[in-house]
C-alpha cells in the first residue's frame, strides 16, 4: 500500500495514519495483556497489602513459595496433569477423527454431536460433572455402575483418581473441536496415495502406518504443544470440582495463584504474582519449542 504514495509528506502521513488506526487496539492490548504481564514481574518482587505495593523484597516471595509444600505439590500436580493430558487429551481427538473419518452415513451427525460439548459454558459443564461424580447414592456414575453391581465410590476424594478424572472432563469438552481440525487434516490426504498403496498390497493397518500417520504428523506435533500449553493453565475444573482437594491432590499452579490472590481472606498479590511469573516462564519455554516446531509452516512476517 505504501508504494502508492509518492512525495515525502504523503509517505509520512501514511505512516502516521496507519499507526493511528492501530492505536486503539494497541492501547487495549497494552492495558489488558502486555502491561499486566510486566506488572506481574514487578509485583512478584514486592510485599503487598491489598492492592498496594508496600516494600521491595527482591526474590523473597519466590523463596517463600518454594519452601511451601503446597507450591511443590501444585507444581508436581501440574506436571501430572500434563502427563495425563498427553495420554488422554492428545490421543482421544485423533481417534475420534480417525473413527468419524471412516464412517459413510451420518458423518455430519457424529461430527456435530462430538462438537456440542465445546459450545457449553465451561463452568456449567463442570457443575454437571460434579453431580456425575458425586459421592452419594444419587451420584450419576454410582447409579449407573450400580446396574452392573459395582459398589459406589466417592471418586473425587481418591487422590490417585482425581487428576485423571479432571483431564477426562476437559477432554470431553475439547476433544470434538480438536478432532474437527484433525478431520480436515485427514481429508487433505491425497486419495490416490491410498489407492496406490493398496495396489502395492498394503493392508488397512499398513496404510495407517505409512500414509495417515506421516500425513498428520506435523499437525499432531503442533496440537501437542498447544495441548500442553492449554493444560498448564488448568484452573476452573479443580476450582469448581474439588477446590484443589482432596488434600491438595488436584491443586494446579493456576489455582494456587488464584487462591493466594482471591481465595483466602488475605490478598497475597505479591506471592500470587510470583506463581504467575513461574507459570509464564514455563509456558515461555513451551512457546519457544512451539515456534521452532512451527517455523516451517507459519511465517509471521
Amino acid at each position, binding site marked *: *500500500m505504501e508504494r502508492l504514495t509518492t512525495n515525502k509528506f504523503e509517505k509520512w502521513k*501514511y505512516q502516521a495514519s496507519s499507526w493511528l488506526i*492501530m492505536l486503539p487496539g494497541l492501547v*487495549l492490548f497494552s492495558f489488558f495483556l502486555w502491561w499486566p504481564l510486566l506488572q506481574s514481574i514487578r509485583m512478584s518482587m514486592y510485599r503487598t497489602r491489598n492492592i498496594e505495593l508496600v516494600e521491595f523484597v527482591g526474590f523473597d516471595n519466590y523463596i517463600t513459595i518454594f519452601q511451601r509444600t503446597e507450591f511443590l505439590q501444585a507444581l508436581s500436580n501440574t506436571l501430572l496433569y500434563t502427563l495425563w493430558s498427553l495420554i488422554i487429551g492428545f490421543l482421544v481427538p485423533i481417534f475420534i477423527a480417525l473413527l468419524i473419518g471412516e464412517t459413510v452415513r451420518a458423518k455430519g451427525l457424529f461430527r456435530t454431536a462430538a462438537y456440542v460439548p465445546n459450545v457449553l459454558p465451561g*463452568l456449567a459443564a463442570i457443575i454437571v460433572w460434579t453431580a456425575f461424580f458425586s459421592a452419594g447414592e444419587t451420584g450419576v456414575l454410582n447409579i449407573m455402575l450400580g446396574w452392573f453391581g459395582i459398589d459406589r465410590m466417592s471418586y473425587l476424594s481418591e487422590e490417585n483418581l482425581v487428576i485423571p478424572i479432571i483431564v477426562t472432563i476437559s477432554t470431553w469438552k475439547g476433544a470434538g473441536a480438536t478432532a474437527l481440525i484433525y478431520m480436515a487434516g485427514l481429508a487433505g490426504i491425497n486419495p490416490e496415495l491410498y489407492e496406490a498403496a493398496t495396489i502395492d498390497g498394503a493392508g488397512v493397518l499398513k496404510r495407517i502406518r505409512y500414509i495417515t500417520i506421516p500425513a498428520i504428523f506435523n499437525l499432531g506435533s503442533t496440537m501437542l504443544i498447544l495441548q500442553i500449553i492449554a493444560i498448564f493453565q488448568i484452573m476452573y475444573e479443580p476450582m469448581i470440582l474439588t477446590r484443589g482437594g482432596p488434600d491438595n491432590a488436584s491443586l494446579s499452579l493456576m489455582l494456587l495463584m488464584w487462591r493466594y490472590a482471591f481465595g483466602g481472606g488475605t490478598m497475597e498479590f505479591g506471592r*500470587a504474582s510470583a506463581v504467575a511469573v513461574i507459570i509464564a516462564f514455563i*509456558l515461555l519455554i513451551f512457546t519457544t519449542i512451539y515456534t521452532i516446531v512451527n517455523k516451517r509452516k507459519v511465517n509471521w512476517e
Partner: protein
Amino acid sequence: MSSSYKSIRKRIDQSRKPRIGIIRDFDLRSPGVKVSVGVINLLCIFIVIISLFPILWVALAGFKDLREFMSSTYLFPESFDFSMYIRTWTQLNITRNYINSLYVIIGSVVCALVFNGLLAYGLAILKPKGYTIVSKLVMFSLLIPATISLVPLFMNIQYFGMGGFFTPLWLAAGANAFFVVLFRQFFESLPISIIEASRIDGCSPLNTFMKIVMPLSKPIVIVVTIFAITGAWSDFLLPFLVLGNGPYQTVMVRLFIFSTEQTINADDLMRAVVFSMVPPIIIFFVFQKWLTENIVSAGIKG
C-alpha cells in the same frame, strides 16, 4: 413413473456412497475389515452418546424437586413438571442476569470487531514501518494466557475506578489475539488490487476499512461475532472480579457464586445450569454449518 424410478435410483446411489477414507470399498471383501467397519460405526454412536448424555441428564434432572434430587436413585424424573423450571427462574430472577449478559455480549461484539479488526487491518494491509514488532507481540499473546496477569489487571481496573460496571469486559474483548490472527489471515487473502484502487480514488485508510475491507470480510466477521458472543456469555473469572456482588451480575457470575458459596439448593443449581446452557446451544445450532466449516480452516491456518 420415470420420476419415481429416478428417486429410487438416487436412493440406491446414496446408499452406495463410496468410501473415501483409509478403508475402501474393495477392502470390505475381507470379513475382518467388514467387522471392524461395524465396530467403527458402533464406536461413533458411543461418541455421540458420551457427548450428549451429560447435557440430556442435566435437563432431565431439572425436573426433579429437591427431595427427589437428593434421594432418587433413578436417572429419570418422576414427572415432567415445567413449573419447577419456571419457579427457579422467577425466584432467582434470572431475567435480570440474562439482560446483563446481553449487555456484555453486545458491547463485547462491537469492541471485538472494531478494535481487533482495525489492528489486524494495520498488520495485514497497511503495514507501517515497525509493524512486525506488533505482530510478534500479538503472536506471543496468543500463546501466553491472559489469566496469568489477572491479579495486576484487577488492580489496574480498581485503580482506574472501572470496577462494578461492564466497561472493562467490553474493552477486554477488543484485546483478543486470536481474533486479530483470524482477521489478519482473512484480510491477507483479500485481493489487494481492490483495496489499492479505493485508495487511488482518494478513500482514506479508515474509510477503506469500513467501506471495502469489512464488507468483503463477512465470513470472518460472522465467525468472530459468534466466538465473541459465546466467549462473553461463558466467561466468569474477570466478570466475577469486575462485577462482584453488584447489580450487574451476568448469568455466569451468578452461577459461579452459586457453585462456590453453596447458597442455593442442589436442584435449583441444576436448573440454573440448564438456563446457562440454552443460549449457546441455540446459537450453535443456528450457525452450526458456518462454525464447523470455518473453525477448521481457522484452526488449520492458526
